[in-house]
């Protein structure tokens, strides 16, 4: 398989799994037999590759969003597996920590990347000693705090970067992307709002 085709398939897999997870929120879909639910994922994947108008939905998505981060792929796959297994590798508490970190860092990161200051953190990702050291510390912390899910989310993208699995030669692209930051921001703001509602005294 050519590198370009692999890159395109990667994006299609991510989008297919994301769409499939949306379907699992529908009760009628959840009532279907497990093999049929799994088959729906395959159908979604193939549908995204169907040729339409000199390309496919997959080529259009690949052109517009590029390749999502490895962290996004891992989270989606974990959620998909959890649907069948009943439990996720990355626990709820770990996801909360991850979303808070991604939202907080991501908003600042993208603002800087779009030129609000002379400092460009994205440039560090091409010779990533500093981000790599920070990630190693995060991995050590995850190990000490017995957070295996977070440890895997630190380690696997690092290995993928070393193997150049994605098109990008920049370490940041293996950990963060705009869709992840957006999703994390929405989840955190939902949690903050629900926390505020719970803390209001009853009328």
């Amino acid at each position: 398989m050519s590198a370009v085709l692999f890159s395109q398939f990667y994006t299609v897999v991510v989008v297919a799994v994301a769409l499939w997870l949306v379907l699992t929120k529908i009760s009628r879909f959840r009532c279907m037999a497990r093999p049929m639910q799994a088959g729906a994922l395959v159908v979604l994947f193939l549908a995204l590759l169907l040729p339409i108008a000199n390309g496919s939905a997959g080529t259009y998505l690949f052109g517009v969003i590029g390749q999502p981060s490895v962290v996004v792929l891992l989270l989606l796959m974990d959620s998909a597996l959890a649907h069948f297994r009943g439990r996720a590798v990355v626990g709820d508490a770990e996801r909360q920590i991850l979303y808070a970190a991604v939202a907080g860092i991501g908003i600042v990161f993208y603002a800087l990347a779009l030129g609000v200051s002379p400092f460009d953190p994205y440039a560090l990702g091409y010779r990533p000693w500093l981000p790599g050291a920070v990630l190693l510390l995060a991995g050590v912390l995850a190990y000490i705090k017995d957070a295996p899910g977070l440890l895997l989310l630190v380690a696997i993208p690092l290995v993928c970067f070393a193997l150049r699995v994605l098109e990008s030669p920049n370490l940041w692209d293996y950990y963060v992307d705009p869709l992840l930051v957006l999703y994390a921001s929405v989840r955190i703001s939902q949690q903050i709002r629900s926390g505020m509602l719970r803390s209001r005294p009853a009328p």
Partner: protein
Amino acid sequence: MRPAPSPRLIAAALLAALGFVALVHGLISGPATIPGFLVDHGRAPAPDSASLSMEFLCNPCGTAQIHAPAIAEAANGDLVAVWYGGSREGAGDVALYASRRPASGAGWTRPQPVITRAQAASALGRHIKKLGNPVIGRDVRGRLWLVFVSVSAGGWSGSALNVTFSKDDGHTWSRPIRLVTSPFFNVSTLAKGAPLPLQDGGMAIPVYHELLGKFAEWLVLDASGSVIGKRRIGWGRGAIQPSAVALDPSTVVALMRDSADTRRVQRAVSGDGGRHWDAIRPTELPNPDAAVAAVRVAGDAVLLVFNDAVEGRRRLGLAVSRDEGMNWKRIHVLEAAPDGETDAEFSYPYATRAANGDVHIVYTWNRTAVRHVRLGAGWLEARL
């Protein structure tokens, strides 16, 4: 007594250690520093070097509109020019075209498409809405590099860069590869200035960003075309479209288009190969928010091709600087439309210096033709 770590945790820790080792290996096996610029001091000038010549490279050029021509001297001495053309800027039928003038001195060949939108989409495996600015240069191994802009969605602020190589002086080109230069869906990096060859076979490319912020940047690629470094020349909303000149292996001067309404050509200098840049400052030369082109000439002087006005692109001139772009002397007017011709446009110049010291300039002529100017080495020297 603390319980033993779970097998899963151990596996994860091993994976982390493996990843770290791989990361370190990847870093230490790569280049430790940005290599120096290849600064060519040329060979003996041609017999007719005391002259200036102007011609249409093509007119018409086979398409309703053309824009953003670029030119380079191939290893065999041929001149290769590329530009984008189609029914209009940004149309789906826009393709990259090329023409060649053999070293023997014969005329320019008929323009031929080099990369079409469909070919780019197929090669890159993704939807391509339109093609844009190409830039071309030759590396230390004699390969031609063609870096071009493509857009998959939206306007020019949604641009990404791609690179293709030619090992046969521009006759055939390799499959384009995407350059990943930005974290925001990899959009909004464009190129206008000529790439600068590095001593290790890579290239430094002056580029710019246009989404929300508008600023110039510096991209470093290794010999395989992979991005290995990026530096910010400016930030916020200021100067864009840098055209860079290497004066020695580590000193580079960037002259830029002004998009912040100062109406002056902007300048920045780096003394360490582009790792760090001095603050951008305006020069004395006017700029009507239009592209400029800079090239090194004899005596380490800098020649600038620019629209010599604060409004419009109806006048195109030449100026030289002998002090890294701080002070300038106007030496010639290439084009000057009469006052009544308000629609005239002479824009987007691109310059390259040949091995014999001649400077070749191409620019957009009224969006319908490519103009080629040759400045003989002797002609230039008499005006420095």
